[in-house]
């Protein structure tokens, strides 16, 4: 195949740009991974650019000596609760936005997006005050509720666009052939929406998993992982910090790896 000069140049530029973007993401990740498993002596050796001796000691210390396993568990619980609550509320809302016409629908949609205008910092203090009054302070459910407030607009808009993409005929056929509206939703529409919903759930998970501000303000004892790391690992030696970074990044990476196809579907981008 013959290639014109311009085309070749274009290709080189494209690849160069792609390499820069990939490097921009991968180099810090690589450094975190290497440093997390580096033997501290190697890490602090100024004659070595990259440590070559590795150990699982740092991760072990962080998880079991500094008891980060507890905050990891807390994070998982909070993320799980956040997904459960935001889907319990967001799914029906998204479905109604997709399927029914009602007065003030557009205003309602705008309001939902408007919720995202409030910075978390603005929300955190009122949250704390209210939580202290109603006894939710320092509880995991409290953090999960705050995270729900952050993720709900996202869940509503995503599920509504997912349900809009599934022709109503499928549901109506279900109803004609013996299902109630509820059953038609659960047996026809939900299975069809599942890949997209799974991706949305993962996104909520990562949002909650990574959220540090509200989690640090609302909770003192039952800290989630990022809040815990913020406090304990900050004073620890560097390899422990990187070990913390590693633990933070790992679940997100695993999820994105499995869900990348659906993430694209959720955002409505067609990449082929």
């Amino acid at each position, binding site marked *: 195949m013959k290639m014109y000069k311009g085309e070749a140049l274009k290709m080189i530029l494209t690849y160069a740009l792609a390499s820069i973007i990939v490097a921009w993401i991968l180099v810090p990740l690589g450094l975190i991974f290497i440093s997390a498993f580096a033997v501290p002596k190697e890490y602090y050796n100024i004659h070595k650019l990259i440590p070559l001796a590795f150990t699982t000691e740092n991760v072990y210390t962080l998880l079991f000596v500094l008891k980060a396993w507890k905050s990891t568990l807390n994070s998982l619980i909070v993320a799980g609760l956040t997904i459960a609550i935001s889907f319990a509320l967001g799914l029906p809302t998204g479905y109604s936005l997709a399927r029914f016409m009602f007065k003030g629908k557009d205003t309602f949609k705008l309001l939902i997006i408007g919720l995202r205008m409030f910075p978390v910092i603005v929300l955190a203090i009122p949250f704390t005050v209210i939580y202290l009054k109603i006894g939710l302070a320092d509880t995991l459910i409290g953090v999960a509720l705050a995270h729900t407030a952050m993720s709900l607009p996202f869940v509503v808009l995503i599920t509504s666009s997912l349900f809009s993409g599934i022709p109503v005929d499928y549901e109506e056929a279900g109803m*004609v052939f013996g299902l*109630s509206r509820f059953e038609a939703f659960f047996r026809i529409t939900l299975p069809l929406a599942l890949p997209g919903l799974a991706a949305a759930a993962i996104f909520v998970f990562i949002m909650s998993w990574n959220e540090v501000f509200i989690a640090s303000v609302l909770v003192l004892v039952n800290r989630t992982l990022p809040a815990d790391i913020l406090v304990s690992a900050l004073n620890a030696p560097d390899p422990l910090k990187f070990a913390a970074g590693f633990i933070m990044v790992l679940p997100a990476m695993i999820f994105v790896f499995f869900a990348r196809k659906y993430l694209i579907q959720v955002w409505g981008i067609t990449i082929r």
Partner: protein
Amino acid sequence: MVSVRLENLVKRFGKVTAVDHISLAIKNGEFVVLLGPSGCGKTTTLRLISGLELPDEGRIYFDDSDVTYLPPKERNISMVFQSYAVWPHMTVYDNIAFPMRIKKVPEDEIKRKVKWAAELLRIGELLDRYPHQLSGGQKQRVAVARAIVVEPAVLLMDEPLSNLDALLRMLMRSEIKKLQRRLKVTTIYVTHDQVEAMVMADRVAVMNKGRIMQIGTTEEIYNKPANLFVAGFIGSPRMNFFEASVSDTILDTGYFKMKLPEEMKQVLEGYETVIVGIRPEDIHPVERGIPPGVKPIELEGRVDFIEPLGSDTIIHLKIGEILLLVKVPGSYIVEMGRKLKVALDFNKLHIFDKKTEKAIL
């Protein structure tokens, strides 16, 4: 299998009245087609019968039981959708079996029935496939198989052939008709295609603006249209219409006059202006010889344009400002621009009141 009775059905969407006091009685085992232009309310009527939509007024009866507000699943109906609505996450087999599984039919009976329906619609070798592996025609067959396998009391079809190509549409329309005859299931079929309606229906209900304009056999709505809308909607090419003022038994269009037989005097009494309609095939060039049985009213015009269609030719005949389409066999040759004498068949003449648009004759 049941008879279906609609009584004064009304359905409004906001300010629009989609279905406007429709009453209709459909006999047990009958094939009735709702025919009309888009937006005439035919699909809404079907959805009211299915229960997917609830009426604002009126009643729906299956035999003697009132089903007006029953949910769809309690009506023992099935439906073929325009989009087919074959569930994409199930195989063809599961699609056809699903309605029976909901009704807790034993699995070996389901197997037998799916096989029966698949053979009937010749989709036996497709049972393991998913819908995205099927062509439009195959999906359509699956949708029909799914609809008949539950032995519905009423079978509803919403433009099931409109997404197929012309040849397939022609084949399927005879197949569906044969199938319906064999199963003797009461069927209500919605279409905007008059040929489809006339070929398939026992009776056709022509609809416009939410109302039924006329209901009758193909022969009745073609030969005895009850009003101007039906006369103009049914038939291709369209019926010729022209306005005429009435004096005694003479109709005057301003460009020509027509003398009607004396017995018409009583019929036309009291009308000032009428609209006269005549189908293109009921006008005969005099020079070809007038067929026996025709009661001729002779006119002369100029050949303005000729549309040769092979088996037929459509002559555009101008008489003053009035354009008459005349349908003649393709073997008849006529030159453009020349004068031509034609005979309108009085027996086939339609006369409508200009005000009410109802047929007088």
